[in-house]
């Protein structure tokens, strides 16, 4: 398992899962918070990746 994207997605999923359970009590709220956090992690990582693409200049 050496796909960087897959490992990043797996990491984002597990961290979002734990944070959602920590921050919310109701399952519905947990699902919503976890999904939003997971999406934010993945989108931010991809955006940062593309921003760093031209480096080193």
């Amino acid at each position, binding site marked *: *398992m*050496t796909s*960087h994207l897959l*490992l990043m997605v*797996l*990491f984002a999923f*597990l*961290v979002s*899962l*734990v944070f959602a*359970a*920590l921050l919310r009590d109701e*399952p519905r709220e947990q699902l919503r918070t976890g999904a939003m956090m997971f999406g934010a992690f993945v989108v931010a990582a991809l955006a940062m990746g593309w921003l760093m693409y031209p480096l080193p200049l």
Partner: protein
Amino acid sequence: MNGMATKSTTVERARAAAEPGTLVLLCLAAWAIPGAAHFWLGRQQKAVVFFLALTAMFVIGLLLQGRIFPFDLSEPLVALAAVADLGMAIPWALARMAGQGAGTVTAVTYEYGNTFLIVSGLLNFLVILDAFDVAMGRK
């Protein structure tokens, strides 16, 4: 009605756990096994999530050839990583006894493995704090 009974039982357990000796035991249980304190406090759903997710992160970190860092005070970042790794007490001890966590610096996934190991420990510290807050009646 059943929901109310469950909630009052959870509150009663939290109240009983607010005594100093019990609080120490609760935090030690949370440190030893992720989710154990939440299970003790009657929050089974959260306990299962913490146990499965954090244990999975720790095991994946080992499978990715990450390193369980030693307490090397001459290198502060290594020492800090060692403290973070120690956040998962029993999995950490089992891995050390099984001779796992040596880390392979040349492996492509080495840094990923370290990240999974370190973050699982740090998240378990947050879970311990959450269990403490629940036991104190703050949540």
